[in-house]
């Protein structure tokens, strides 16, 4: 038996050095990955920074009271008015029309797919709905302007070529897949034992769906509605194409009107110098939009916590 030549084996210190090196590279990799995750936080900070800093310049020239109470929005005229309610009204009316379509339709489709349809129909219908949700909004805008508006004009002859109604209806169709898909997920997560309990009492499918499954999935349904609202409030191109872009303080969906989003598009289409008041208005409008969607998100999270699934 011969002794190994000691120099053939790696010395302890060598191995430790290798370990140390490996630890360092693991640390570096972790730091890189963390940096990537932090980009999302930076994005949020960037959004808030840009909107707030430009809005500060804006509010240095326009008082917040005027901004909230003025009934005209004419930022580019010599007699400039900055009443955001004009744009908010367009946003709210079009969103209301959209949700009046999307929430009932989406919920009905979700109940149908989750409680009535056989699995094969569901396997096909869900991806097709997702395709509908994936259609670019500019194409929906085209659809609203060139197909839906002429049809609506046959029903309401006085309807103008641009209207909140037409844009809102198409927006509603666009949002249906989001509401349907999320609601269906929530209802399918309701345990089968609850349904069996209801069926064992002699309920029909619809009765079970409405009185047991829907209440049990309520927080998920609420979340899907909130997402639908966010989509409607933030939707841009359908409105820019089909609702007209003139500011109009109205609560009538039959009229054309600008929304917060379509106003931003309109300004961006022009050639406003960086730093002018007109340029700053779009950031003030964007901040308003972000705050509105934020409110709905907070409401959604609150609803979710309050009605956490207790099955």
């Amino acid at each position, binding site marked *: 038996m011969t002794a190994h030549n000691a120099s053939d084996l790696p010395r302890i210190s060598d191995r430790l050095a290798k370990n140390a090196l490996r630890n360092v590279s693991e640390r570096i990799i972790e730091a890189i990955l963390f940096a990537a*995750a932090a980009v*999302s936080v930076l994005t949020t900070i960037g959004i808030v920074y840009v909107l707030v800093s430009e809005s500060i310049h804006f509010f240095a020239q326009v008082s917040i009271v005027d901004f909230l109470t003025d009934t005209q929005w004419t930022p580019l005229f010599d007699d400039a008015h900055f009443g955001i309610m004009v744009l908010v009204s367009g946003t709210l009316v079009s969103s209301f029309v959209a949700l009046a379509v999307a929430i009932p339709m989406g919920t009905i489709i979700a109940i149908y797919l989750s409680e009535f349809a056989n699995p094969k129909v569901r396997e096909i219908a869900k991806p097709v709905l997702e395709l509908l949700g994936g259609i*670019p909004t500019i194409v929906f805008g085209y659809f609203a302007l060139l197909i839906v508006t002429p049809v609506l004009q046959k029903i309401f002859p006085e309807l103008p070529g641009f209207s909140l109604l037409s844009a809102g209806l198409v927006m509603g169709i666009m949002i249906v897949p989001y509401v349907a898909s999320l609601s269906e997920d929530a209802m399918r997560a309701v345990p089968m034992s609850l349904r069996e309990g209801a069926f064992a009492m002699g309920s029909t*499918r619809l009765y079970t769906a409405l009185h047991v499954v829907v209440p049990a999935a309520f927080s998920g349904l609420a979340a899907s509605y909130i997402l639908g609202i966010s989509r409607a409030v933030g939707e841009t191109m359908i409105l820019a194409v089909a609702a007209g872009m003139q500011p109009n303080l109205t609560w009538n969906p039959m009229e054309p009107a600008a929304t917060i989003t379509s106003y931003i598009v309109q300004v961006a289409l022009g050639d406003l110098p960086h730093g002018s008041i007109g340029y700053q208005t779009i950031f003030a409008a964007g901040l308003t939009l972000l705050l509105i969607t934020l409110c709905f998100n907070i409401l959604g999270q609150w609803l979710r916590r309050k009605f956490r699934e207790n099955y």
Partner: protein
Amino acid sequence: MQPLTTEQIRAVIARGKAKDAIFQAVGILCLAIGLLVIFLLVGDMVIRGAARLNLDFFTQFASRRAAQAGILSAWVGSLLVMLVTACAAVPLGVAAGLYLEEYAKRNLVTEIIEINITNLAAVPSIVYGLLALGIFVYAFGFGQSILTAGLTLALLILPIVIVATREAIRAIPGMIREGSMAVGATRWQTCRYHIIPYAMPGILTGVIIGLARAIGETAPIITIGALTFIAFLPPLPFTETTEGSAGLFEWLMSPFTVMPIQIFNWTSRPDPAFEVNAAAAGFVLMAMVLTMNGLAIWLRYRMRKNIKW
């Protein structure tokens, strides 16, 4: 109170079943409306745009004369912007998803990142346009370039890629990690050789869905001020331009247009001749988006069939 007689019970059941049937009919009707919209859209665009749907349409630049206008600069622009978006969003999204699933400790910072990603997904796309206008266009001085557009859309789809990555990673059972760690692999080696490859189909699905969303986005790109008349292509690397030889990355800083912008431009013109172009371009864009989404759905379907842990 008397218990119900058999007849009464049968009447109650009959009423309930009638309601079931009515609801079922309404449900099918609602689904059919969704389907009908897709058919109407595609059908209308094909019929209206048929006259322009030929090879010339793809090889000609935009023009003031509707019959000669094409989408060359638009589809090239869309592809280049998507290239930038993918190059930025995929590594960032996968790395972020990997960090959150495999590295992050349960602490405040992680929670902030997670809440933040959820909220970003609900931010309207036009707000990303404002972000890009303030940061990329002016603060960084990228101007109305392909780079600005690509990065903007990358930020927009980042939450989609991160969520898809996390879901794909979460579907990998813990024993795979333990198996790898047990033979002495480091955390990164486990990720590099096991987690990322196994999660790849799921990540790919998310990336495709994200890109399909990005390629149809119009609002943020208009917001950065990119609605201009573009009748040229970005410079190829190492070619001669009026300003001298183009470098490898010169095209990144080039002005551009993309498909949805071109459609918006054509729909907003008063001359109805341009509606034909809008329809034809809309059909091309729809075909791109539906193909990408279809691919993603197919991938997901295959994945569900093949993977059995």
